């Protein structure tokens, strides 16, 4: 985890730094994707790489998601270590065949005689009217498939460390970034170093002074919501433990169970739909393994079960944030509490537009 004293950079810069340091170390790494060398440079994350590492290792590509995924698998089997990038995870649906039928199974079906060291970065869009086909959080589709690793770092230091680990990994890793995390700044180690792909982490743990306590297990950008909610909840006397789940496959339940043992209450947050989502899996496993520790049924907080409309007027309730979390926690630990009669909440939660990551953001996106 990030430590004080390290210099502060954004999530996007952290990914870029992971690329630079990895590529310097290992000549076999190539970066490929629509727009990788272009002026936008995948929201800055690939800026300058082509100049530095040459056009043979840093490549744009045709619009051909399934074909290019297969080509990257072939290149990986041939000794390269490709990182393939999709600017929206929605585009990756075109390549489900190659990801699920080939990448996920190559090592297994050929009895360990080959592996696919391929990283596929997929960005989850949100806000500024991304709409039904550009704002999906589809990671659960991949988390269902044995043979894949599916990580969703939420902090800049994890973004760097997990990208390095993903590139070092000999198996296919889907590296899923929420677009709204890119601007987040935090302390990030300067040196090359990996963060393991299969460990959830306790991000924050407030001291329990009463029975009012809760465990929040959060994926990706919902970690940000969880932190905001925890600020509010703590001021209301609720002790909150936030587990940044980090990975959707494998799911590391240990810190969740350890915390639930103390709190007895679990809230699971995800950016993806509930049904057959990673939130369902966390609930199912928590119950299977921690039934007797739970005082009440775990609660899932996820987007509602419909596509995301474009109009910002319509998306008000599509991205449940801190407010929804606080409400859910109140319901769980003390149903008499309501969010409306707590002044502190109003101070925390702005009524500004909900379709931008921060107030000064302007479109287009």
């Amino acid at each position, binding site marked *: 985890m990030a430590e004080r004293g390290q210099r502060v950079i954004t999530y996007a810069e952290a990914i870029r730094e992971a690329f630079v340091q990895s590529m310097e170390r290992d000549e076999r790494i190539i970066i490929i994707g629509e727009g990788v060398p272009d002026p936008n440079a995948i929201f800055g994350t690939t800026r300058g790489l082509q100049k530095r590492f040459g056009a043979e290792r840093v490549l744009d590509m045709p619009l*051909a998601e399934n074909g290019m995924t297969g080509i990257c698998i072939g290149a990986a089997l041939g000794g390269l270590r490709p990182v393939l990038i999709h600017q929206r995870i929605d585009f990756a649906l075109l390549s489900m065949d190659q990801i699920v039928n080939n990448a996920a199974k190559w090592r297994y079906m050929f009895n360990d005689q080959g592996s696919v060291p391929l990283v596929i970065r997929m960005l989850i869009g949100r806000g500024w009217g991304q709409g039904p086909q550009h704002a999906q959080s589809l990671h659960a589709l991949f988390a269902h498939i044995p043979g894949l690793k599916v990580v969703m770092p939420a902090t800049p230091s994890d973004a760097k460390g997990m990208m390095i680990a993903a590139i070092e990994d000999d198996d296919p890793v889907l590296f899923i970034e929420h677009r709204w995390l890119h601007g987040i700044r935090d302390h990030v180690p300067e040196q090359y170093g990996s963060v393991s792909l299969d460990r959830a982490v306790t991000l924050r743990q407030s001291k329990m002074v009463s029975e009012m306590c809760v465990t929040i297990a959060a994926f990706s950008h919902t970690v940000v919501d969880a932190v905001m909610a925890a600020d509010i909840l703590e001021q209301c006397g609720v002790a909150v433990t936030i587990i940044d789940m980090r990975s959707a496959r494998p799911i590391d339940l240990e810190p969740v169970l350890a915390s639930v043992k103390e709190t007895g209450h679990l809230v699971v947050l995800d950016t993806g739909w509930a049904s057959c989502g990673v939130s369902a899996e966390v609930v199912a496993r928590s119950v299977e393994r921690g039934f007797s520790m739970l005082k009440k049924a775990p609660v899932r907080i996820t987007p509602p079960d419909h596509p995301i409309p*474009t109009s910002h007027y319509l998306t008000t309730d599509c991205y449940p944030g801190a407010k929804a979390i606080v409400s859910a926690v109140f319901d769980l630990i003390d149903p008499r509490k309501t969010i409306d009669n707590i002044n502190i909440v109003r101070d925390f939660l702005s009524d500004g537009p909900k379709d931008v990551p921060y107030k000064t953001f302007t479109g287009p996106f």
Partner: protein
Amino acid sequence: MNENGTQEIHLSTLERLYRSMLRIRMVEEALAERYPEQEMRCPMHLYTGQEAIAVGVCDHLASTDAVFSNHRAHGHYLAKGGSLQGMIADMYGKESGCCGGRGGSMHLIDKSAGFMGSVPIVGGTVPLAVGMAFAFKTLKKNRVSVVFFGDGCFEEGVLHESMNYAVLKSLPVLFVCENNAYSVFTGLEERQPKRAIVDIARAHGLETVAGDGNDILHVHTAAAEAVRRAREESIPQFMEWQTFRWLGHVGYQNDDHLGYRKPGELAAWKTRCPVQRMESLLQGNHQWCSEQLESIRKEIDQEIETTFIDVKQCPAPDPRTAGKHVYGSTTGSV
């Protein structure tokens, strides 16, 4: 026929084409002007510079013919007769929008005009147009289905699957490839080898035509024949038109300073502005005076201004309706 192989076109047609192109141009200029107000909160891909293609093709279509399109849909939608009010209202996210605000710039529809839908997944609507043509043929409707897409889209495998089926079943479908030489910031040479798109389509067995997409007379004449052959003989057609977008891939600004295009490329294409070429034609061959042009401009301007005023007054949709229409009945909701 003249030297371009284009037919002499009646003045009333020229005026219609001019109006239609100019209207698209002016609507997009108005959008660009207002976009920074941050009230149209959705990605927008402007069509400025490419108007001749949409207009030249759609002029031959009835409202019962179908058009499908992509992320860069404003021109196709307007040329096909889609409601201006419906489009702009959707960009503003309003209830009266053509998708009730659910779509925005990248998802347009106006079924009454035969504009059957545009979506931003590249290639997403190409097979849909073929399927619609299949339905037209099966149901013995005398209709044509048209799909507009870009040079980037041609790289998607689904396009080839769609062409194969269209030819296999001799469907009344017209593929219109708008080759503006870029996909976002990426030039054609980084995505496709040096060979002609249209040659691949022809090898698939499609009847093809290619040319200068900024020459409305060429587009219009070729499209007349293509639509006729698709409609009357059910022979699938493919057109590849060279063109250029003037503004950035997304957003409202010129982005030429970013340096991803060849120097002078944009300037050269601007001299081939389809709107201006038509103005010269009208003023030259047909002795129109500038007042005539100006009055058309005024009319359109009026329409646009009124529309924006109307749209801004329209009510926003109720966020509590965001969950509606996932299914026709309620049986599907989980």
